[in-house]
């Protein structure tokens, strides 16, 4: 009989953190919850074979990355209808300078695997080797993906529009 006490504790204490990772993968709150739920379900089914809660959390993240990079295309590629428009939030008055927007644009431009590499490497702070193990790719691929992502980020930063001058007004339309 498998004891699920540790699993319940993991779910209660670590779910919010894991949901943040799932959100960075999918870019959508509902899809993130679905991804987390799928990963937790797989972990629940394998819980008897996992050593402890830390191994359990690592397993959840690994499954999330795997499900996201392999299943995502098949399962969630359709349009996602919603009644509410995504909330942008109150961002910096100089939009291009807001890191969130730049990084959000960057993530959107990456493939799923590249996106997973970036999130695991720079949000989860995993080593290149751990990222490679988790995604089942080589360390070289992780390095090249990271370098490419940083290059894109640099390119998008250099092409940013100049910020508005304080008190100034942007001219739009025909003169």
């Amino acid at each position: 009989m498998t004891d699920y006490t540790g699993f319940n504790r993991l779910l209660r204490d670590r779910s919010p953190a894991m949901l943040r990772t799932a959100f960075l993968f999918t870019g959508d709150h509902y899809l993130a919850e679905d991804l987390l739920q799928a990963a937790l379900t797989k972990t629940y089914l394998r819980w008897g074979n996992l050593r402890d809660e830390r191994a359990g959390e690592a397993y959840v993240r690994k499954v999330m990355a795997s499900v996201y990079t392999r299943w995502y295309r098949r399962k969630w590629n359709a349009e996602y209808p919603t009644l509410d428009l995504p909330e942008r939030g109150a961002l910096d008055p100089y939009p291009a300078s807001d890191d969130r927007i730049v990084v959000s644009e960057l993530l959107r431009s990456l493939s799923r695997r590249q996106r997973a590499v970036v999130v695991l490497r720079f949000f989860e702070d995993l080593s290149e080797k751990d990222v490679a193990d988790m995604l089942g790719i080589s360390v070289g691929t992780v390095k090249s993906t990271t370098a490419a992502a940083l290059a894109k980020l640099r390119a998008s930063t250099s092409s940013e529009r100049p910020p508005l001058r304080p008190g100034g007004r942007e001219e739009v339309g025909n003169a």
Partner: protein
Amino acid sequence: MTDDRDEERLRRGLQGLAADGSASPLDTRTLREDVRRRAHRVQAGRRIAGGLGVVVALAAAGLWFLAEQPQVAESPINPANSSSSTPAGTVTSSATPSATASPSPSAVVPTPVNTRPSTLRVSLRVTSGQPSPEGGSFVAKWEVTWSGGSAPVYQVLIEEPGPVVRTSTEIGARCDGPVGPGSAHGELLFDSPGPHEIIAVVRAKDCANRVDRQTDTDIWTWSQPTQSP
């Protein structure tokens, strides 16, 4: 240096985005219930799939057995109704007529295909026939006789190695008909004088569809047929 700054910016951006994403609180109790329900559904699905796998395997084994059934039934039939040994009438089979042949001196030794004992005995005799009116061909006159067995003979095949069926003669006996000796004969046309290997296959079948199959082989070479007085 640039990389470090870019990395730092990437980290800041990811942190900010993650904070946006977790703005709405996560109901862990609901999540736990959902996970448990989903896991039980998966487990039930696996159990059903396992059960279906067993059913499919059994069905496949059954189909294989049924497919193999005629082959298995090629083994001799239990001599259940061997007591009814009413003589069956001689069957005349019509094969393609043609040229000449010589009486083969080859011995007619029944060659049972099955290792299991069968009471059905088959004998093939091939002789040379008169040349066909078209000429240029070699006619083999064959005669198959059989006796014994426990079911009525329903088919006689004349084959060449390959096997190539040269002629098939349906006896038309009912499965519950009389069991007894019988014969069939006909002619075959060959392009060369031979020697030719000719195989007679005799099949008997009872009402339970159990088939008894016995063969006899003859090696025949054409020779000028002797004129009968």
